[in-house]
């Protein structure tokens, strides 16, 4: 925990959840169109399992990214005054200051992304497939 983590890891912590949501969203959407827009019988996708599996995977990635962000926060929290200063936007010197900033951002993004993924992940399977709204 002494060295700052690599850039890729940091940005996964920031963006991971969001990207996972995009993936879940786009692919589920494609399935629902394929299943419901197409004249019956052309696509016989096992939509339900796919849907649930996808959501599960996406949520998993989201959690992982959340964990990274949390770890990053703890890392920068070693310099307590940095964490405090950052919350107030005092802009403590990079890289520590920037890392803490990104960590806070990552935590919140992932929280929201996760809530969306969970809501759709639970909500969608509860509804009957392909019924006109």
């Amino acid at each position, binding site marked *: 925990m002494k060295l700052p983590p690599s*850039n890729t890891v940091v940005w996964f912590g920031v963006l991971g959840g969001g990207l996972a949501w995009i993936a879940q969203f786009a692919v589920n959407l494609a399935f*629902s169109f394929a299943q419901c827009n197409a004249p019956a019988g052309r696509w016989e996708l096992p939509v339900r399992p796919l849907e649930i599996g996808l959501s599960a995977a996406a949520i998993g990635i989201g959690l992982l990214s959340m964990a990274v962000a949390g770890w990053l926060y703890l890392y920068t929290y070693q310099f307590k005054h940095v964490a405090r200063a950052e919350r107030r936007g005092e802009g403590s010197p990079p890289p520590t200051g920037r890392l803490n900033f990104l960590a806070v951002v990552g935590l919140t993004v992932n929280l929201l992304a996760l809530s969306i993924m969970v809501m759709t992940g639970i909500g969608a399977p509860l509804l009957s497939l392909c019924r006109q709204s």
Partner: protein
Amino acid sequence: MATVITDQGRQHVDRLARIWEERPGILGWITTTDHKRIGLMYFFTALVMFGAGGTEALLMRTQLIGPNHHLLSPEAYDEMFTMHGITMIFLFVIPMTTGAFGNYLLPLMIGARDMAFPRMNALSYWIYLGSGLLMYIALAQGHAPNAGWFDYVPLASKQFDPGNNIDYYGYGLIFNGISSTAASINFIVTIFKMRAPGMSLNRMPLFCFAFLAVAFALLFALPSLTVAALFLELDRQLGFHFYDVAFGGDPLLWQNLFWIFGHPEVYIIILPAFGIATAIIPTFAHRRMVFFPLVALGEILVAFLGFGVWVHHMFTVGFATITTVYFAAASLIIVIPSGIQLFAWIATILTGTPDFKTPLLFIVGFIVYFMLGGLSGVTLAAIPFDQQVHDSYYVVAHFHFVIFGAAVFPILGGMYFWFPKVTGRLYNERLGKISFWVTFIGTFITFFPMHIVGILGMPRRNYTYAAHLGWTLLNFIESIGAYILATGLLMIVVNLAISLFKGPPAGNDPFEGDTLEWSTTSPPPPYNYPVIPTVSSPYPMWDKDDRELDNRRLARGEGLLELGHETPATTAQDAIWDEILKMPSHSAWPPVTALTLFGVFFMLVMAHYWIAGGFLAACGLSLIGWHYKGVRV
């Protein structure tokens, strides 16, 4: 903070002034690549467009002031509301925010001497001007687009709209999209690479985060509109069948493509307003923003989530419920980043030492209307309710509170706020306050009754309505409100116009602002800053010692970059000084290129494909000329 400049410093300043001198006269404006001049050109063009769009709105309100009026023929009314939408969104709000405010202020705020690509910056202005002209040529000919700014097929298809009205729409928007794409690329690179040394991401002003978000949203949203318009034109002009059910097309494809762009668009419109608010609030609350990281994040996240909500414009087309639900969740959660910022602003005002000058008043008005509009927006994310009021005046009320109340109010506030910086003179505070209250009340009277009319069942886009339906009184009130609103806007223009000549001198920093632009003279010199500023927090103007240091460095002649149009480039994340760039100056190629492109699109509208091809070749040649000099200035 009066900057005391020593004689040595004076010499350096004079030298810089010589190097960065702009060409005189009209030619200087046409060939300029100075982000401030381009910003001003954007500003005045957008202001004219605002006038045009406003006039169209007033005509419509006058038509609807009572039942069965025929001031406008049905055809004229359709063209009016279409042009009103297109003008306000593509020709006023976006150019005004990104174009004018962004161009003028962003480089100043990050302590750069120009945008990353100055000539491309000029190009995007000239293209924007061209697209505006294209649209209004159509109106002048009486061929203005007439199927609504959403332009649903098949109503917009050749079969039901044989004129070339819609061709102006399709090509006009593609043309305009080029300008916005170029501008957003320019903004992102500027923000990533041109920040003053030391301004790491966590020290970047929130204003810049907002514009970063906008730029990214534009970059990824516009292609969808371009594709939609391209398909439309292929359908209309070459007889393709993307949207034609009879040949296996699908009109809903247009709706999807359009709203994939259209909803991020809404946030593209509102985000710069957030940025302006976050610039104004700390200044007048005399305190740092509460919870800086979350506000920055909120701005980015709104733009990001905005891509996952488009079908809530289409809840009534009869999609499978399961499809709609994927969107409902995002449509609801997107409220949170907005809520974060909202309460951060309120908390900042509340816990600070607020001084309710005109700009802050406009921001407060913005907060009020943003809450109203936002909350009615939440109700629209609830599918059953949306299916009831969709396409009724309830929706009109909702998005006018959001777009006018929440997006335009900060623009007005920002006009007051940065007026001293741009002109070097102070506006009239009392008249400013009055103009605020008139505008505020006018907005409320105009748009609030629309909620009720909508729930009573009045659909949008009706050129008139029958007397016995009980909509008469409310519509009358709305129209009166519209006139009050117009008066308020006029008062603002008058105030600024008078102050421009009669206002007392402002000095560098009349409001004790927090960001860098207040450290330079008003109006700023072409090189913005004699020395590359020292930055060690998001509120550099409040770090007095840094500013003192800059004065000493000026005297010592340190960090001046006085060998031509030079500016530093830094690393993207931590802003470590990486290299010194030489910027191009006054080139005639951007307007030429824009002109050739205008030819291309105008000829496409007229369906003269070969001439269009010729213009395209000319455009290619002009680009060669563009690069011929490289940056050996």
